[in-house]
């Protein structure tokens, strides 16, 4: 491309001259980004170093808030819960999404376009509506669970009871995001050159062999990205439990997930400093886990 440049102007001046223009295009985004991303992060780090005390007002306390959070059983309980959620729900959701994407890509389905768009539809449904819908259906009053009990004369376990509510939430999240992840995988599968499949078929490879030896390695990038998004989503779990809470206050506590805890601390408990601290720790945990996973995923690729 440099060959095509007119020789009259040297490359360096053009680059620096146009650099300003590139920066000009990027600047509006960066300005808002600084306001709504960088400034709040800096501000919450600042907040986390202070404590609002009854006597003495706001005082600098160093890492006291962090020490308190790391010894806070409510925080650990919430973190353990989202950790469990991550280990169970994410593999199920991504597994189903991957299977559907592979089925679509195999070209062996009747009505492929119908399948693709239908499975994706829940993505367009707000978390509020999805949670309300499932919450109603879980209900033993006029939900589907009640219908099934009634029709078959059985008593299904109540998905809203304290020991099953996490599974109930997992089901809602799975329903919401199978289609989204399926689409990420499917888009990646589509761009694999078909000549590879033909070559493999000539070598006598079956469908499953092609999946294992060609398709999965080829979409590793998409798998890593979808997993990272899901890790972030799990650690951030908030909407579904917070919307279900008024329905089942006994099953979902105010510190059910770390984010719900942060929210309760800041807006019901007026403990903004401590809330900021918990939020920062969760942000760090999320980044470390996501980064570790990315390193692992990418190392295998190399």
């Amino acid at each position, binding site marked *: *491309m440099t060959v095509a440049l007119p020789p009259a102007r040297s490359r360096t001046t053009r680059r620096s001259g*146009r*650099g300003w223009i*590139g*920066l000009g295009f*990027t600047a*509006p*985004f960066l300005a808002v980004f600084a306001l709504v*991303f960088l400034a*709040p*992060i800096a501000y*919450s780090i600042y907040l986390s170093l202070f404590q609002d005390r009854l006597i003495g007002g706001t005082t600098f306390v160093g890492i006291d808030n962090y020490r308190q959070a790391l010894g806070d059983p409510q925080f650990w309980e919430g973190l353990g819960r989202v950790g469990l959620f991550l280990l169970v729900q994410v593999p199920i959701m991504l597994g189903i999404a991957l299977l559907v994407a592979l*089925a*679509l890509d*195999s*070209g*062996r389905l*009747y*009505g492929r*376009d119908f*399948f693709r768009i*239908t*499975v*994706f*539809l*829940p993505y*367009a449904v707000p978390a*509020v*509506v*999805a949670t*309300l*819908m*499932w919450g*109603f*259906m879980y209900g033993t*009053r*006029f939900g589907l669970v009640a219908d099934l009990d009634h*029709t078959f004369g059985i008593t299904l376990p109540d998905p809203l009871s304290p020991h099953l509510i996490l599974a109930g939430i997992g089901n809602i999240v799975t*329903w919401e995001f*199978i*289609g989204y992840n399926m689409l990420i995988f499917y*888009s990646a599968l589509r*761009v694999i050159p*078909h000549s590879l*499949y033909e070559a493999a*078929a000539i070598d006598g490879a079956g469908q499953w062999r092609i999946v294992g030896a060609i398709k999965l390695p080829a979409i590793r*990038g998409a798998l890593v990205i979808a997993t*990272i998004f899901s890790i972030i989503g799990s650690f*951030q779990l908030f*909407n579904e439990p*917070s919307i279900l809470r*008024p329905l089942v206050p006994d099953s979902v506590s105010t510190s059910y997930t770390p*984010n719900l805890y*942060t*929210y309760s601390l*800041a807006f019901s408990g007026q403990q*903004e400093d401590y809330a900021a601290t918990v*939020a920062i720790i*969760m*942000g760090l945990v999320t980044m470390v886990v996501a980064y570790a996973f990315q390193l692992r995923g990418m190392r295998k690729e190399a």
Partner: protein
Amino acid sequence: MTTTTPAPARPDKSGRPTRTARLRTPSPRPRRRAHSVDRPRRSKALTALSGLVVLYTLVPLAWLVVSATKTQADLLGSPGLWFSGHFALWDNISQTLSYDHHVFLRWLLNTLLYVVLGAGGATLLAVLAGYGLAKFDFRGKKAVFAVVIGAVAVPATALAVPTFLMFSKMGLTNTPWAVIIPSLVSPFGLYLMWVFAAEAVPTELLEAARVDGSGEVRTFFRIALPLLAPGIVTVLLFTVVATWNNYFLPLIMIKDPNWYPLTLGLNAWNDQAATAGGQPVFNLVITGSLLTIVPLVAAFLLLQRFWQSGLAAGSVKE
């Protein structure tokens, strides 16, 4: 100028036409006689298995549609997945729209305001920045990339509390700006536009325009923008979904029900029904939910060609 320049083919490593391109032709797909790797034999078993996932997807939506046709009494007294004798959908809709001095319409207008300014602004910023990053070299470009990608991993809720405190000092909470301004940044949108601009806008074309004496702004609007259209539709659709469905941000920022978006309003109705002594309006919650999702579902169905090709391009380079 743009009309005489052939648009670049959608990125595709192998050079074969992508499936979207094939789907785009209105005529029915030609039937191949022989089954090949490209067109294998259809499998009923596989279709049935995938059908289970479709069923799982559709059951709640079917339940919602069916329930929206029922009165409050029938909701409690008839099976969830079948219609009751009395078809009350139109009645439910008019009740939903008029309940509490037409507050639902107010919430709808608020949502539209947040979507138009928030998602529209986010798309505009992402397109400009994506183009700037993809087609120009400047100092600090790598740093921008690292920071923006790192930002994706920062939990939105970690930002929410400090953002709320900052905005409350600026006097912005409880105003539409508190919802719109944070919506303006979409790191995912920027990433998608960056990848898309790098592929879809040939640098030679920009060079040619510059040689012809076209200014940078004019070059952007006359040459780059039309080529970026599929990517723009994709980013717009995803930012629209994000703002239309946003719950957490307005929950924190907005206390005045007059500024609620639909999501908060529906949740408030549901809470009202769960509160002791509150008027139960489950039929309005359900009908309101249906009315809330219809526009987005329609948009996704009508625009699927665009967003699917845009997404395909985004996935190429990840």
